[in-house]
């Protein structure tokens, strides 16, 4: 039942021989050791498993590997690393938008997706863009502040 699936993961070409019915989430976590993408419900209701495919946020728990062939996937591991944080990561730390951290990877990717297409979103647009990412710790206020802060950081840099 296994098939060869080729795709670009965090900028690198990957070729895997996997069962195409398995979810991207499980393959990232179990086969590729990329555990930054989280499983909060495994049925598309929480957004913790959010990754970007071709720049768009999707639930990796609802995406079979068969759909990934030829795609470009970005996970939290590809956003930035501790020595070179992405401005969103920097902003989340500075503003205090991280508490337990479980929603954070998915939240950051949803935030990246909005800033990529809308560099200076309004408060309402930011809230709308992360409405698919549940957070039980922060009450969202500081997450929204962090995304605004990152938008300004990014604008200052470009």
């Amino acid at each position: 039942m296994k098939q060869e699936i080729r795709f670009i993961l965090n900028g690198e070409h990957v070729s895997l021989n996997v069962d195409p019915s398995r979810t991207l989430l499980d393959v990232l976590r179990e086969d590729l050791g990329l555990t930054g993408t989280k499983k909060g419900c495994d049925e598309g209701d929480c957004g913790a498993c959010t990754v970007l495919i071709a720049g768009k946020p999707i639930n990796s728990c609802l995406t079979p590997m068969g759909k990934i062939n030829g795609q470009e996937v970005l996970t939290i591991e590809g956003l930035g690393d501790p020595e070179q944080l992405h401005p969103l990561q920097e902003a989340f730390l500075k503003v205090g938008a991280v508490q337990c951290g479980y929603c954070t990877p998915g939240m950051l990717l949803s935030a990246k997706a909005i800033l990529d297409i809308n560099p200076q979103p309004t408060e309402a647009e930011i809230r709308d863009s992360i409405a698919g990412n549940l957070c039980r710790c922060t009450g969202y206020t500081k997450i929204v502040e962090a995304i605004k802060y990152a938008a300004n950081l990014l604008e200052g840099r470009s």
Partner: protein
Amino acid sequence: MGFEYFRPGSVEEAVSLLFEHGPQMNVLAGGTDLLVKIKHKAIHVSKVMDITGIDDLRILNEDNQDLIIGAAITQNEIVRHPIVAQKYTALKEGAGQLGSRQVRNLATVVGNICNASPSAETAPALLVYEAKVTAVSCRDSREIAIKDFFAGPGKNSLAPGELVTKLSLPAEPARSGSAYIKLSPRRAMDTAVVGVAAYVRLDSAGKCTICRIAMGAVAPTPVRAFQAEQAVIGAELTREVLAEAGRIAAEEVRPISDIRASADYRRQMVEVITRRVLETAWRRAEGSNK
């Protein structure tokens, strides 16, 4: 999840796979409904055919002024499409309120109606546009009126071996307007307690020449409110007409009580939401110069 995975490259290949494997073969587009059912063990699935790799199903354009929506077009592609935003507002509003943004990047409009949930967010809009569903099989191709497409909760009227390839929405003339309102306690990622779409076309004097109203989550399938529509056709926009349409619509529905709301509440909300959505559609028609 352990099913055999097929990814045909053409409609011909897809329908022959359906023919060959019969009812064992399940069609997967966005997968946001099917995979959840599989994970919940609500269904057991051995074979899945992913149709999103078929280029012919990725059409989203105006053809002879009809809007064509291919079966692989996602909800967010609909939301972002300029023609949809301009002319098919109710559809944009329905698609834009389905699930989360992440789900909308996966889920398709065609998948939403094939899944035939009574509360499907895009169904009321497609009903008021009188969309046509194109179903293709090995042998032939046919068009099904959207009002005949829904057969019951989770049931559509496709015959074995048939695949929906596209939806066609008739061209929208000037002086027409549409809207969709979804009522749910949570403001995102929620299932509609009631969802109503309305479509209004006006003559030059401002009288309604065509009115269509459709509702979700109030009957075993998404349904038209034909009697309420009759109360609007020929009328001018008044508070009384809107109220009357709401009242009649509330009488037409057959809601149930479930975990989300009671039947009584749903019925009351049909009245309120029908009135509101009709007014919005009407205002849009008045303001449109398409």
